[in-house]
């Protein structure tokens, strides 16, 4: 506030208090934005040329063709759904021991570090990259997709489960331990009941995510509705592609609403 100001006008405090830091940040952001936008290389001619294809695509989406490739679409959906179920079950089954191992309050240090490293590895790479590796190793088909989704499920579920286990109420664990229970009994009666609602909630949520991702891993040949979509695009059958996209959106919406309802009931 300078005293020279005629009216005492209040202005909200800035987000970053140090003016030097604030201006440096703003200046840096502007320079970066200019540099970044200059790399965009917008090719107007190509965009105009593409608009024609875009309008055909849009027309295809407005008149989706569910019928002519229905058997392919049906097979793709079935494969996506089965991939999701199998991958979620396998992923959760592996995540539970790793999640316990990655919780500092129940696992010894070497196991903790091992499990944490595993979680970090599973979280770094995008599903599609992992899918490429599995496709190279196992050949095309839904099994590569199942393994990809299981692997990424571990990174997600084990991490959140471990965080939840680290926040449990220790008095219940102590009470069970005081009865002379074994380690396994302490886990099943002291720890597991405390994290169970969240574990079920996360599983349902992950099922939802896996269904979404199962549509994507197919783009690199790992089975599911993504493969069908890729084929439809390759043949320039935009009406079929539109139908597939609408089905994906519908499926995702249904599972999202269902998983929301289930998770709300659990709380």
């Amino acid at each position, binding site marked *: 506030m300078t005293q020279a100001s005629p009216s005492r006008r209040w202005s*909200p405090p800035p*987000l970053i208090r140090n003016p030097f830091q604030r201006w440096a940040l703003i200046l840096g952001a502007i320079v*970066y*934005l200019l540099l*970044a*936008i200059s*790399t*965009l*290389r*917008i*090719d107007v001619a*190509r*965009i105009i*040329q*593409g*608009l024609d*294809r*875009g309008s055909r*695509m849009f027309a295809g989406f407005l008149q989706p063709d569910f019928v002519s490739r229905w058997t392919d679409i049906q097979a793709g959906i*079935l*494969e996506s*759904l*089965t*991939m999701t*179920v*199998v991958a979620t*079950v396998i992923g959760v089954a592996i995540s539970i021991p790793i999640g316990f191992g990655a919780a500092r309050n129940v696992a010894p240090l070497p196991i903790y570090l091992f499990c944490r490293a595993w979680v970090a590895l599973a979280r*770094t*790479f*995008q599903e*599609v*990259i992992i899918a*490429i*590796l599995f496709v*190279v*190793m*196992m*050949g095309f*088909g*839904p*099994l590569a997709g*199942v393994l990809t989704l299981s692997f990424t499920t571990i990174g997600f579920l084990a991490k959140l489960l471990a965080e939840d286990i680290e926040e449990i109420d220790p008095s219940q664990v102590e009470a069970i331990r005081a009865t002379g229970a074994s380690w396994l009994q302490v886990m099943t009666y002291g720890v597991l009941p405390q994290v169970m609602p969240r574990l079920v909630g996360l599983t349902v949520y992950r099922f939802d995510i896996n269904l*979404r*991702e199962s*549509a*994507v891993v197919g*783009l*690199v040949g790992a*089975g599911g509705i*993504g493969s069908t*979509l*890729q084929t439809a*695009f390759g043949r320039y059958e935009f009406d079929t592609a539109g139908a597939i*996209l609408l089905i*994906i*959106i519908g499926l*995702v*919406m249904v599972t*999202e609403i269902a998983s929301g309802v289930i998770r709300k009931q659990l709380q």
Partner: protein
Amino acid sequence: MPVQTVNGVQVWQRRDRVGAFKHWLGWLVGTLIFLGCWHIISEATTWAFVWDAPQQGGQLLSRMIPPRWSYLNQLWQPLWDTLNIATLGTILSVAIALPLSFLAARNTTPHPIARAIALVVIVTSRSVNSLIWALLLVAIIGPGVLAGVLSIALRSIGFLGKLFSEAIEEIDQLPVEAITATGASEFSILTYGIVPQVLPTFAGVSVFRWDVNIRESTVLGLVGAGGIGISLSASVNGLQWSQVSVIFIAIFAMVFLSEWVSATVRKSII
């Protein structure tokens, strides 16, 4: 709590008879569904290739090591592109999600129909993965960074819009009432009553999404939408596995750094 008397001794059980039966039935049905699904997957799998996988994996690893470090010099440009795709995409999606979220939030929406439209936009954007958006956009506007930026933005609008509007719905009404009582205009209520309350959440969520977008933009190149994914797909298709490992290390470093940046920024905001 069900207690049974067996030979005059009280035995505690976790569930009563009906409960145990239901529990068992649930597991039975679940297992059957899983086995049925597994059967379908198994039918569609060429098992000879799978038994071959450990050998294939070993060969892959032996070709990946040692990484061809000289290839790194060709990666700076794609890495820079990847960063730009994620950052510009996030900025664009924040710019669109901001007004959208005020339309979608129950307490700030001007009209129920506007809210319904905003919600449909959010859900549609969330349901389609950025890679699929990229597939569409590459066909329309051609391969390149721009398609990547737009597909990242299209996917992020839904995510940001959902979390933004939830933050708006959870605000404290008292400051809003206080500012309304001064006779402030609608716009002033928004900027002085609501925005200061949600700004930290907005910033935190946006930075978090930027971090996710870095990860997503590493693969957009697989369908031609720019970034390091182009180098990855070229190297995989050319069976240049020693280059693939360099790319993996570069991606790992980039994701690690962005996660660190995002965590630091979010910690300083909250």
